[in-house]
């Protein structure tokens, strides 16, 4: 019976220790606890709590302001760390509009990598700041957003060169499989460019076409 008693004692102590560890890390040790702990207003430290901007119309709850406390509605943070900065003035009221509609990323998340969308299973990472205008088109399709011309040129080129035959883009295309029925589908291009571009990629891709004896590459500009 002694063996069983020791098993019970040691397992119970282990469980207790791990549960306490989980409770402590959950309630005190998250990244945003430290960030909010340093933030100061004129009246002193701020409440350390989860913050979010809820936009019922867009069905979004963006928790970005849990770390970016300077952008939380009604907060005037004095410290000059990066996350304490207020949002610059834009056409929308950021306090009600939320963040991810324009910036992308994962609004529900409360940890940096997850929130910025730099994780494996989040398909919409944050747009680089200079491309934020690309999101205007999400709601304002008919309006003349900046760089609309570039965008539509690219779209037409994609159609004209028949990229859709092998590649899928936002659920369209990708029906032709170079290897036949059982062949591999062309890579899905829906999210290409969201994490920046390799400027030489196109040249390299065209070079593959030149080198290939057979295979999936169709003739396109830059090819032979």
């Amino acid at each position, binding site marked *: *019976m*002694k*063996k*069983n*008693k020791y*098993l*019970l004692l040691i*397992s*119970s102590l*282990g*469980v207790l220790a*791990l*549960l306490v560890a*989980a*409770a402590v890390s*959950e*309630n005190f040790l998250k990244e945003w606890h430290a960030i909010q702990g340093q933030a100061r207003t004129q009246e002193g430290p701020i409440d350390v709590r*989860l913050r979010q901007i809820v936009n019922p119309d867009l069905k979004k709850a963006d*928790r970005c302001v849990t770390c970016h406390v300077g952008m939380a509605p009604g907060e005037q943070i004095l410290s000059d760390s990066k996350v304490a900065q207020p949002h610059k003035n834009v056409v929308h009221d950021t306090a009600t509009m939320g963040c991810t509609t324009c910036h992308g990323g*994962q609004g*529900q*998340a*409360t*940890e940096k990598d*997850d929130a910025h969308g730099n994780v494996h*299973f*989040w*398909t919409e990472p944050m747009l680089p700041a200079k491309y934020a205008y690309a999101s205007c088109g999400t709601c304002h399709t008919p309006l003349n957003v900046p760089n609309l011309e570039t965008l539509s040129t690219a779209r037409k080129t994609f159609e004209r060169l028949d990229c859709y035959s092998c590649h*899928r883009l936002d*659920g369209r295309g990708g029906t032709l499989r170079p290897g036949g029925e*059982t062949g*591999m*589908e062309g*890579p*899905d291009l829906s999210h290409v460019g969201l994490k920046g571009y390799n400027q030489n990629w196109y040249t390299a891709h065209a070079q593959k076409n030149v080198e290939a004896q057979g295979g999936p590459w169709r003739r396109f500009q830059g090819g032979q």
Partner: protein
Amino acid sequence: MDEANRSALNEFWVNLKSVPSQIYRAMFRGGAPVSDRTRSSFVFGNVFLHLHSVRTHLWSLRWTATMGLGIITTAAFLITLVTGVLLMFYYKPYPDVAYQSIKDIHFIVPTGRFMRNIHRWAANVMVVAVLLHMARAFYTASYRKPREFNWFIGWGLLVTTLALSFTGYLLPWDQLAYWAITIGANIAQSPREITDAMGITEFFDIGGLQREVLLGSDKVGEESLIRFYLLHVMILPLVLAMLMAVHFWRIRKDGGLAKPVDVDDRVKADAEEHYPVFTEEPQKTYQLAAVVKGRTPAVGSGPENTVPSMPHLFYAELGVLMFTTLICIVLAFVSDAPLKELANPLVPENPAKAPWYFLGLQEIVAFSAFMGGIGIPMLCWIGLGLIPFLDKETEGTGEWFGGPGGAKLVGWSMIYGFATSIAVEAVAIRFGWLREWFPDIPQLVITLVNPGTVITVLYAGFSIWALRRFNSTRAGALALFTCFLCGFIVLTVIGTYFRGPNWEFFWSPADWNAH
């Protein structure tokens, strides 16, 4: 104020003070479990504990007797029950919203991610433990008379456990869930392979019906989600709890765990380790034994090798319960439960894989949907269910690998089981199968001759050889069970780790990305 009144007030005060001890005494009528009699009444006076026998044989208390696998399974179930109820407070069973709610559980529900991790790990521990528990019961020949019915109940518990795990798989509504259930539903549809070949699908579409009953629709959608949710949180747990109650109660009614005939010569109570046994005259008489049917209660051989279940058995059970909890919590710390992208019916996962315990079947399904999905599993199922009625021998009951052939036969069966399944799979992977050699071959031929059926036939042949060699059904069963266990492991490992996009063979998932 007169005398009587004062004493009533006094009495009231005394009663009030003794309320806690009165409640305690009302709850535990037998008193503290310090003597043999009170230890017994502690067990049979408690609705939950009285599923146990009041005394436990020392043979059953040895760690090697059961490895605690049944209790590990029960403990894992209790853990999933507690964490599952907690998750239900936040989970919303509707497509897309379900995914958002899991994200919320992950990110803002206090310890939500931790609880989900524990739930997921406990579920996996439960599946593994229930399989090992079945193997234990088989290898110790515990299915034999009078335990045939309990083996049956265990058989039902295995199916219910797999169904619980499978229904839970869909709930996060991510790509992993969506496509795994799609695969599962396609496996349910696999009888079509036969009805198509016979040209009767139009009139008799049992496969299509199975799929539709499972999904509630022609594809995985909101009807499927609500259906799986209801099964997962209510119907299946209730079924499981009821079967478990019967399972435990039958252990007691069948005379405890299976033991060798000469068990009393093999174990001896250690006076230092164990509470002294039968120190007092039992106040409860067992006259009833005279009118109860069945085998005579132990006459001539004393009960000296049993010890009171309270505390001996309960320390063991609590110890295993806490140990299982510890394992699940450690795993939950080490590894997060997966959550992929939001389910998207337009973007199939490639490869789409069923939950891991079905990947062995999926490996055969890749050749023949019917054989992998229905044929071979049914054969195993029926075989398992019939064992107690085919093996009526008595040699080796209660002992590991007991019976003719014994551990040596099991060892050889393992070698044969691994070698055959690996060899057949290697041929199929390296040289292809009938479809690659004869492109025009009818599917019905592949249904009959595919790696799954070939392995099954080879195993059956080996089992018949063992049966004749040792002139014993038990030897045949030992060989067959061991072989199938090895085949299950081989196919599951190949399906899990070595199959990539388009179900092609890859040495490592790192090679998956062909582009």
